[in-house]
């Protein structure tokens, strides 16, 4: 059976692509058919992924299969479209297809009544196809192709409600910021192509084995990392992700929390053989990840929009994963990617359920007491939050613990402390959200709140189950099966430490208790705190003013320069041409007096002209020939 299914794994991205093409070309007039086809395609992709994962995991340590077909080739450049099926791919296939299926089913409820359902599902299908194409890529060229395609799907879906000015701008911001990262990524790819003559992962890994010219490898690795910095929204290219929340909430759950933004982490894991051979690049990755984690967590504390809190949480967790990669714990990073995908998409879908129930209200202070009206949403949300905070034995506990352990074991005590602080902040801001929105005393708009239909709550329940149990795959209970398959010889897999487990749990509990004290029991007034530390509060509330800084710089160096250059073009470059034309015209005015209408003088000019021509032609011919 595996012999048949493995070479046909291309069907996994191809089915959603076919759905996209059919909807785009023919079916867009029938929203229900479009939605059905799209869900069918992604569900089929999920079902196909299962035997592929089984085939890969059947072998001790994980099997590797590779297939490819010629796509763009010429002497000196060869880019295939390929399938690389190994444990890393298998994990991603399962994560992407399962969450995408659930999100698409959930969208049936969320997008109900929207006039653009058909195009929504066509973009969803295109996204699924591109993301799966990225996941199975066996070379950097293919990776880049799908990397950009998921970017454009993200652009379309952020700007899905294109009538909104804010959605339009957020979409542009997302794509252009990503382009800045991709600029570096592309340069990195070009360097690899020029130096090693191949972009195939296996080929590069072989070629690089004996290559030690660090003066070249350091810039190459750092440039390559620019791609993940854009896609996974790492500081300082993080600005687009919070704004991306303008898109429909299921899109935020799938693309801007679970899958696409994790592609950067996946790329680092995929190209771990490059990064791990350059210690300086690894340090760079770890530091960028650490900065992003703490930077976003502090901002999340002050936000009031339920989706923005989750968005900053996503940023922070992506930083966590990058930090894990940077300290060499590829297994821990990928493990956290997987658990995070489940609980964060759960949290976003839960938020979407609240938003629908509250009729588009997103401010947590205008919610309250939702647990009575929306029990399923509330309790699945709490499970997701506990998992995110790292409370044992939920999924997030196992993966977060491994990251902290890796930071500690690799000797990066600073990063370990930072990680612990982020864990505390995470617990605090998540339970601030929960106590205010779900258990708060505010009853504003309560009468209209209601639990949503099964099409929305069943995906929540399934994801909640995953958020509880997904962590066991790399726990001592299952003998660290995940790490057994997903690892890299250059990576580290430190021995579990009870001390770290206990301390990280206590830190998370402390965060929850502090949130409970302030926001539930109201023993400390949060207004008073805000007023007392207003400078810090404003700095965090305004996201450290990074967006404002970028806007200012852009005004001067991009748009200002653009206007200056246009002035130059019109007045100098064009002016030069017009000046020559003016001189020609003027000399024509002078010469006009030679046109006196006398046939004799014309004849004279003609003879003179011919004589001059003959002389010139002779000289020219002689000089050219000689």
């Amino acid at each position, binding site marked *: 059976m595996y012999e048949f299914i493995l070479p046909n794994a291309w069907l996994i991205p191809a089915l959603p692509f076919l759905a996209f093409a059919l909807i785009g070309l023919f079916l867009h007039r029938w929203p229900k058919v479009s939605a059905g086809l799209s869900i069918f395609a992604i569900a089929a992709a999920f079902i196909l992924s299962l035997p592929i994962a089984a085939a890969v995991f059947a072998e001790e340590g994980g099997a590797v299969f590779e297939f490819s077909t*010629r*796509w*763009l*080739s*010429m*002497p*000196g*450049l060869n880019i295939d479209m390929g399938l690389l099926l190994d444990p890393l791919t298998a994990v991603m296939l399962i994560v992407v297809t399962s969450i995408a299926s659930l999100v698409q089913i959930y969208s049936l409820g969320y997008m109900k009544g929207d006039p653009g359902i058909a195009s929504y599902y066509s973009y969803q299908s295109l996204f699924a196809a591109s993301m799966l194409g990225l996941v199975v890529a066996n070379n950097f*060229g293919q990776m*880049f*192709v*799908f990397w*950009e*395609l998921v970017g*454009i799907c993200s*652009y379309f879906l952020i*700007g899905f409600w*294109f*009538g*909104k*000015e804010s*959605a*339009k*701008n957020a*979409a*542009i911001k997302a*794509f*252009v910021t990503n*382009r*800045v990262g*991709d*600029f570096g990524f*592309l*340069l990195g790819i*070009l*360097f690899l*192509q*020029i130096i090693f003559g191949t972009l195939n992962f296996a080929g590069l890994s072989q070629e690089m084995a004996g290559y030690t010219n660090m003066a070249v490898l350091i810039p190459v690795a750092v440039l390559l990392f620019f791609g993940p910095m854009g896609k996974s929204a790492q500081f300082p290219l993080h600005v687009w992700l919070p704004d991306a929340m303008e898109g429909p909430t299921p899109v935020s759950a799938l693309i801007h929390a679970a899958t696409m933004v994790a592609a950067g982490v996946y790329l680092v894991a995929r190209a771990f053989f490059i990064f791990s051979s350059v210690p300086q690049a690894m340090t760079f990755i770890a530091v960028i990840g650490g900065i992003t984690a703490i930077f976003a967590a502090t901002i999340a504390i002050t936000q009031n929009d339920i989706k923005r809190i989750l968005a900053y949480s996503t940023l922070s967790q992506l930083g966590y994963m990058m930090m894990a990669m940077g300290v060499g714990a590829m297994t821990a990073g990928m493990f956290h990617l997987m658990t995070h995908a489940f609980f964060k998409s759960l949290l976003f879908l839960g938020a979407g359920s609240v938003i629908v129930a509250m009729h588009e209200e997103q401010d947590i202070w205008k919610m309250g007491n939702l647990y009575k009206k929306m029990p399923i949403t509330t309790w699945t949300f709490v499970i997701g939050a506990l998992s995110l905070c790292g409370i044992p034995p939920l999924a997030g506990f196992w993966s977060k613990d491994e990251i902290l352990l890796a930071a500690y074991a690799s000797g990066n005590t600073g990063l370990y402390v930072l990680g612990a602080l982020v864990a505390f902040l995470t617990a605090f801001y998540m339970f601030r959200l929960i106590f205010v929105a779900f258990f708060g005393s505010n009853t504003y708009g309560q009468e209209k709140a209601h639990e949503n239909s099964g099409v929305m709550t069943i995906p929540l329940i399934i994801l909640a189950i995953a958020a509880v149990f997904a962590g066991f795959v790399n726990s001592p209970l299952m003998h660290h099966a995940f790490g057994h398959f997903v690892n890299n010889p250059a990576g580290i897999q430190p021995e579990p430490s009870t001390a770290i487990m206990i301390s990280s749990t206590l830190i998370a509990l402390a965060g929850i208790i502090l949130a409970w004290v302030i926001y539930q029991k109201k023993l400390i007034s949060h207004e008073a705190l805000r007023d007392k530390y207003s400078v810090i509060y404003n700095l965090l509330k305004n996201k450290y003013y990074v967006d404002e800084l970028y806007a200012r710089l852009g005004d001067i160096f*991009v*748009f200002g*320069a*653009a*206007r200056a*250059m*246009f002035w130059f*073009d019109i007045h100098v*470059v*064009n002016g030069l*041409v017009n000046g020559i*034309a003016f001189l020609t015209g003027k000399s024509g005015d002078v010469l006009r007096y030679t046109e006196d209408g006398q046939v004799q003088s014309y004849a004279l000019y003609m003879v003179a002209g011919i004589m001059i021509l003959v002389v010139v032609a002779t000289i020219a*011919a002689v000089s*050219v*020939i000689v």
Partner: protein
Amino acid sequence: MSGFPVLTTTLLVPLLGAIIIMCLPADKHKSIKYTAAVTTFISMVLSLAVFIGYDKALGGMQFIETIPWIKDLGVNYALGVDGISIPMLLLTNLIGFSSIYASWKIEERAKEFFTLLLILISGVMGTFITTDLFIFFLFYEVVVIPIYLLVIMFGSTKRVSKEYAGMKLTIYLLIGSAFLLAGLIALFIKAKAISGVPSMDMAFLGTLDYSSGFQILVFAFMAFGFGTLLSMFPFHAWSPDGYAGAPTAVSMIHAGVLKKIGGYGLIRIALTILPIGAKFVAPVIAVLAIGNVVYAAYICLSQKDLKYIVGYSSVSHMGYVLIGIAALNIISINGAVIMMFAHGVMAALFFAMIGNLYEKSHTRNIEDFGGLAHQMPKLATGFMIAGLASLGLPGTVNFIGEFTIFVGAFSSFKVIAIIAITGIIFTALYILRTLGTMLFGPRKEEWDHLQDLKGPELVPLVVLGLAIILGGCLPFTLMDLITNGVEPLVAQMALIQIGGLF
């Protein structure tokens, strides 16, 4: 099919159409348009047949036709196509066919319009399929006349008057051609002196050994002539004004294919015949090309008129082509050729959409629009396809061009390539801002009366959109052909350098 003169037929069918239209009464608009559509359709199908029928295993010039014409000058009516010219031939006919439909609404003086348009299409086609230098030049000059008349008769006046635009286009074309002519004559005389035989055959001229000094001088002349046509910085000023003044179909053909004669000529004539000159002058071209890519992309950010945006954007994209040519390796030249094709279909689609919108709204200022996707979803799709192609999104043939050029250029000059690659950021910025301002955002009720694309208006979108996407998803169809044409050229260049002329 061996005896059938397929290239001559492809070339002459539009001319035949022009003659038929001249004989039709001026008020028979329907017949005039159908004649134009049918003749360009035949040419398009024939060029597709050439594209499919070309034997890659055999390589070289195929579908050859030769009729001696002027013995004393060694001029032959010689046609033939290889891997470099077929994409250009195909491009001309895809755009030619689409441009007829983009002009479907023309009622006033339709007879003159379609006659001139068909002559123009034929003329452009001629330059790509001839293997004789003299015939090449002849067709190049033939093109100038209909362009000028079409712009001043049917153009539009915005920032500059249409008369000014027409004059500017024509004068620049003529200045370019004057330098070209000087280069050609020098080449002919020198070749005759070396070989003793008068010949205008490009392949024959390429086999002779010219001295380095001569090569550098003549190559510089040609680079100036072809470069002006390709809107090489700082000789690009005609391009935005010219496109802004020209009617839709002329903008499509000019930006889509006519401009590409410059790039094609540089590769087919200048590089092939004067490889040492190329080696010497190429760095200069590469530096100027940065001016194209970055400077023009910046200017796009400050533009409000759609045609100026696409005009400057095409100057910017031609910078990639110039860098590809200047890098002088097989990958970069492959990239330059496919980029010319890619930019051609993209720019033509852009201009077709702009023309359609302008016809209905009588404005091209992007700030007058907003949320047009509400009223005109199909037009918005056309703009999006062209826009995404323009910013080099994978899945469009433009990505293939840009990526290949980057790889090729990067192995020849690193710094220039890096500066040029920053263009991908600015292009994304100005394209998405332009499209965002026009198409997205709140619905503007003043445009509720605009009708979306329908019937014949859809033809450019379907034909050109399909070419963009098919080329992007199946790049090997075009690229294998182009490699086939470029490989012998690069091999010959390498041979001459080993031959020790330096």
